[in-house]
């Protein structure tokens, strides 16, 4: 198998990939510690956090709405024949809602969010890095980490749970539409079925983990952008690798967080 070439012409080896992987993990860990340190250092850029939250919310609202609606719709369509086969059609609203609330809603929203936002942050900060805008901030005695990174990471951490709750609601509406296409069901019956099946406690682990996912999206995008090098090619690389890394970390952390939530609340 022919491996791609290094930018200086040498063919990459598996060792290079391994080295890059661990270098990224180390860099991300150091960047994370720097975030924790800088987040408590004034000035606190609250206006900038609000601005990013609004921008990110508006930017992703359309795509997550469509995705949420389709998740609910398809999940109900796929499950309906199976539930009918087992004579459990009455449980369909509850089954779909639980799936969406506990797992599909948070994870799919986070992955869509990563694709839209992590790449955007990576490209924006990467572009600022290669055009010396970050250096310009630094020489003006303005802390670029605080102004650019801390604000974005806080904004992604805060906005993703809100988007997730919204997506869950849209997905449940989608599932209702899928059900009534096949068989008549009053909205009141559907609503009471959902409310009986989904307890408030089901929301907590699902929505709580989206704070972690939002943090990952902001941190990875910022890390890749802030450390970008190599001109426009570097900006492109920062953008694409942030999506891949953020998505991978979301899935890894999801499995860990599910295990932790089951350990903390075994009755759920």
């Amino acid at each position, binding site marked *: 198998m022919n491996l791609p070439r290094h930018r200086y012409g040498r063919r990459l080896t598996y060792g290079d990939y391994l080295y890059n992987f661990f270098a990224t993990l180390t860099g991300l860990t150091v960047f994370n510690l720097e975030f924790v340190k800088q987040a408590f250092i004034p000035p606190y850029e609250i206006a900038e956090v609000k601005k990013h939250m609004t921008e990110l919310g508006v930017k992703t609202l359309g795509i997550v709405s469509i995705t949420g609606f389709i998740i609910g719709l398809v999940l109900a369509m796929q499950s309906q024949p199976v539930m009918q086969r087992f004579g459990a059609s009455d449980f369909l609203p509850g089954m779909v809602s639980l799936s969406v609330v506990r797992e599909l809603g948070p994870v799919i929203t986070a992955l869509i969010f990563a694709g839209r936002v992590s790449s955007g942050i990576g490209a924006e900060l990467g*572009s*600022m890095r290669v*055009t*010396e*805008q970050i*250096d*310009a901030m630094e*020489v003006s*005695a303005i802390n670029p980490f605080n102004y650019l990174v801390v604000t974005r990471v806080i904004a992604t951490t805060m906005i993703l749970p809100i988007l997730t709750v919204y997506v869950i609601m849209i997905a449940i509406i989608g599932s209702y539409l899928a059900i009534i296409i096949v068989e008549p069901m009053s909205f009141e019956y559907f609503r009471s079925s959902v409310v009986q099946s989904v307890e408030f406690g089901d929301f907590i682990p699902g929505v709580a983990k989206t704070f972690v996912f939002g943090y990952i999206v902001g941190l990875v995008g910022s890390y890749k952008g802030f450390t970008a090098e190599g001109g426009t090619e570097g900006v492109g690389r920062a953008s694409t690798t942030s999506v891949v890394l953020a998505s991978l970390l979301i899935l890894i952390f999801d499995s860990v967080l599910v295990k932790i939530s089951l350990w903390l609340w075994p009755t759920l």
Partner: protein
Amino acid sequence: MADIIVKTENLTKSFDELLVLKNISVQVERAENLIVFGKSGSGKSVLLKCIIGLMKPDSGNIYINNNKISDLSIKQLNTVRKDIGFLFQGAALYDSMTVRENLSFPLKRHFEEMTPKEIEDKVQYTLELVSLEEAIDKMPSELSGGMKKRIGLARSIITDPALMLYDEPTTGLDPITTKEISELILNLQKKFNMTSIVVTHDLICAEIIADRAIFLRDAHVAFEGKIEELTKSGDPFLKNFFSHEIVKV
């Protein structure tokens, strides 16, 4: 004794195997304009970035207003930086902000006591200095190369720095705009009694601005003196370097 604003002592910097600066010792006096000449890749910009603290030298010392840069904490370094302006080669305007926001950004950060009216007045005044009042609501993407340099210059001087560092202020500009920008730099320097270090390989710019020049070659200071001495030097390399400067405005 002259008031030394910037001093480097045996400054050495390399990137992996590539030695860029070796034992560079330079002094710049108050209100003096020093031009740093050299071929592309000769370490001119690296010298500026070491002075401002964007790059760490491998060895040697840098003093700004008698503050040894390597001994300063980031907080102390930022205090020193507040008195320094830096014009980047590509102007480095914040492209998500309008010209007004670009200029008011450092004021809002460093002069918290200023009212919005005072900030607006200062922005207007500084734009007048660079003759670009009409660009106040434009985005950087709507500006030409020369306009970007002027706005970059306006942003650098808006905090009234005592020291200005210019990284290739006229590169990529036509000879007329080059002359305009160079004269602007000189006028601002005279008006505000600034000290300037200008990295360039543009003779038009150098002849207008320079009080003194140094020439970097093979990681060393190959020449130091008046600009006329430099251009009339008998050194074959320098002769060859300046013989390509054919346009005089």
